[in-house]
């Protein structure tokens, strides 16, 4: 079955179909038909849930765009649909199912039993909008912890961002394991090292992990809320600050969504430079992860060597951009300024140097038996599990799943470039490490190709207005995986709804599956192999 057959089959249930020029199809269905259609999409079209976005249309209604109390909330279910019928074929388009939820009866039917990936999204929507997912598998607070009042829903339009919220006195409940020899090991949110806050509850039997509960979202920044009402260019600053190490990827994802809404063609030179910078960001990110894996097994000899390589990339970035984290260069419509030939050469040289010296790091890691002994068979994430929970990025590719937004959506100039998607079938920390090594080399190749074909020309088109009430997704493949930004502007070109789904948000659940059966002291290295980000979830 393909998409059109599905649309035909369900044409009596579908309220509206809207095709766009940028590969996104929006299908509006009734709340009661949603479950059935999602089942079809997942089972017949092999769709994978990429993200779920809830939009409160309260102000829409006041301005008379949709004066409908029955459809106050809109929930967007975005599915990645493979090009062919098989799972492995690269997805080419986005199928977005939209359903309305009424103000009086804020409930939806949970799809977690057919699509496990919806777990976090539905919980977040419940916390933020108060839309109750019936029949959800595990409805504990996600964004809101036990001490957050149950009747406050911050993302609703009638909630003022500056409202002070008092903590409530409530006892925390958690999953318990019982039996002789089992115990609960709480870790965090304050750790011995300088890392972000996360509270982990390990249910253990001796050193073996039976279950892991991760409580995150300790430092919620409210980016989505404060960006509402911001102009096109101002929100770009927000997007650059979603996460420290993926600044550029987030910014490009945001820019893409804005460019899609306005149907703007970004100049060729800007797109090529974006690709060069994105790939350098990828090299830097992957080197950080490789370094982290080596540190966590106390193989400092290699980790410091890799750390030095990463510093070379960041220094080159600083020299050219005056920002070690690739900030303040990208904007909707292109680049904020052009980068001269000399600068491009510097970046290219940095990439070529890495390509040469990464062999030494590979030699250090692949030829150390004590190191390999730690990473092999550790933290296996099985392909079936990974697919069910919608894992993206290196986590997916290490579990032998095709998932690379550069190939799938061929944004910027990726469609014209020659590079391979690195897959690995070992499923463990070793696999994810190998994928990273492979991608660093591919990235250097991409930078070479882009720099060679770079032509002079303008680097930006002006965007100061945006088409009103038109949703679009911006998708980039960051070092951590696929970032998905969803934007709707209002009729004054101010942001109406901005939703950020970072790669780590999609991957955190994978960690809790990957550690099962492994031992407690191996947790840090498994965690590092996914390199999950806390702050991009606290959006």
């Amino acid at each position, binding site marked *: 079955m393909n998409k059109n057959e599905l649309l035909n089959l369900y044409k009596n249930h579908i309220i509206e179909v809207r095709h766009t020029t940028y590969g996104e199809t929006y299908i509006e269905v009734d709340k009661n038909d949603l479950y059935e259609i999602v089942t079809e999409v997942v089972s017949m079209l092999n769709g994978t849930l990429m993200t779920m976005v809830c939009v409160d249309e309260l102000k829409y209604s006041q301005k008379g765009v949709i004066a409908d109390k029955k459809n106050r909330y809109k929930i967007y279910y975005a599915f990645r649909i493979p090009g062919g019928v098989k799972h492995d074929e690269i997805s080419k388009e986005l199928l977005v199912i939209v359903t309305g939820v009424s103000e009086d009866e804020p409930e939806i039917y949970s799809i977690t039993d057919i699509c496990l990936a919806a777990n976090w999204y539905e919980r977040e929507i419940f916390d933020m909008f108060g839309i109750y997912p019936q029949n959800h598998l595990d409805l504990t607070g996600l964004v809101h912890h036990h001490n957050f009042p149950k009747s406050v829903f911050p993302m609703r339009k009638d909630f003022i961002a500056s409202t002070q919220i008092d903590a409530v006195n409530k006892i925390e409940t958690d999953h318990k394991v019982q039996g002789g020899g089992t115990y609960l090991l709480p870790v965090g949110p304050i750790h011995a090292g300088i890392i972000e806050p996360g509270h982990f509850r390990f249910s253990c039997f001796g050193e073996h992990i039976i279950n892991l509960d991760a409580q995150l979202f300790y430092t919620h920044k409210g980016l989505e809320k404060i960006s509402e009402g911001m102009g096109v260019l101002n929100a770009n600053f927000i997007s650059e600050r979603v996460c420290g190490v993926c600044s550029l990827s987030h910014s490009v994802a945001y820019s893409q969504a804005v460019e899609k809404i306005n149907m703007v063609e970004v100049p060729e030179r800007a797109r090529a430079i974006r690709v060069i910078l994105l790939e350098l960001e990828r090299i830097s990110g992957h080197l950080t992860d490789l370094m982290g894996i080596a540190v966590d097994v106390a193989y400092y000899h290699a980790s410091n060597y890799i750390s030095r390589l990463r510093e070379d990339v960041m220094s080159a970035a600083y020299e050219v951009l005056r920002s070690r984290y690739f900030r303040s260069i990208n904007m909707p419509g292109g680049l904020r300024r052009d980068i001269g030939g000399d600068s491009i050469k510097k970046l290219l040289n940095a990439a070529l140097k890495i390509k040469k010296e990464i062999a030494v790091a590979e030699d250090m890691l692949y030829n150390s038996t004590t190191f390999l002994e730690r990473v092999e068979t550790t933290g296996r994430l099985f392909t079936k599990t990974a697919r069910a929970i919608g894992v993206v990025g290196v986590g997916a590719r290490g579990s032998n799943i095709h998932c690379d937004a550069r190939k799938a959506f061929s944004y910027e100039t990726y469609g014209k470039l020659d590079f391979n998607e690195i897959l690995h079938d070992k499923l463990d920390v070793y696999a994810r490490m190998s994928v990273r090594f492979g991608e660093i080399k591919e990235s250097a190749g991409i930078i070479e190709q882009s720099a060679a074909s770079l032509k002079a020309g303008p680097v930006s088109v002006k965007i100061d207005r945006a088409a009103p009430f038109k949703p679009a997704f911006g998708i980039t493949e960051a070092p951590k995986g696929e970032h998905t930004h969803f934007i709707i502007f209002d009729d004054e070109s101010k942001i109406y709804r901005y939703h950020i789904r970072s790669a780590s948000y999609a991957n955190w659940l994978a960690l809790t599956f990957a550690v099962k059966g492994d031992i407690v*002291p191996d947790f840090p290295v498994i965690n590092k192999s996914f390199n999950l980000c806390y702050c991009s979830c606290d959006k």
Partner: protein
Amino acid sequence: MNNEILIISIVQTLILIAISPLISGVIKKVKAVCQFRQGPPILQPYYDLFKYLKKDSVVSSTASWLFLAAPYVMVAAFSLAAFLIPSLSYKYSFSSMADIILIIYLFALARFFLTLSAMDTASAFGGMASSREMMVCSISEPSIILCFMSIAITQKSTNLSNIMSSAANVQNAMFTAENLFVLFALFLIVIAETGRVPFDNPATHLELTMIHEGMILEYSGKYLAMVQLASYIKQAALFTLIINIFFPYYMMSGFTAGALAVSASAFLIKIIIFSVTVGVFESSISKSRLFQVPDLIGISFVLALTSIITNIVKS
């Protein structure tokens, strides 16, 4: 004669305790060089100890007297061990009073108190680290006993003075097959006992992987200084055991200032060479998986056993 023994014993104990933090400093520096880093100054462990002394101690409200007593017990036990182990001279030493078994169980006493104190605060990491420590020591203890059994068979004594003097009096006495087995077995045990890679990682910040660091996580201020000093002395004592049993060269034979200076500098050079070896060894490998630790100590156990069998077959 008794006065001389007392003076030299006290002098060599003080020297051993005084240089014990230096050993950690040297190892850290060697590791830093292997990791392409500049690293902290060699004297950093001393600065740290003085810094801890100046800080306040925070003690968990659930902790009992045991938590505060453990650092004293540890420093006392290791200092006594340092007093009994001849570092400069086996001739002028009280080690004739005590044999190797006593020293091994002085270490065990300190460890017993440390593991109890780690569990005393009811911190999750303390209990976890204690259980791991006990797992490691329950297999390293038989191994270390076997090592010394083998040495005792060769040198016909379990007394350190006798072992060292008989080793020193015969040219290259320790470089026989059975003793080299023991040397390697003991080296592994010393690495395990001092909580170094591949058994434990002294530089880690990851609570979940900790063994020794996990046990001392709750200590602060002067108690932390004492616990740290205790582990420095333990490390120095263990290193001294190895170098003086296997390389008892230039040890003090006469009661003169010159002999003292020669033996002290020889000791210093030997222990620094040994520390550099440990540092390089540690840098060249990564930490092993927790359940692989018994296998590693098993290697040491088998080596010690082989050595004993070789000894028996030879005699």
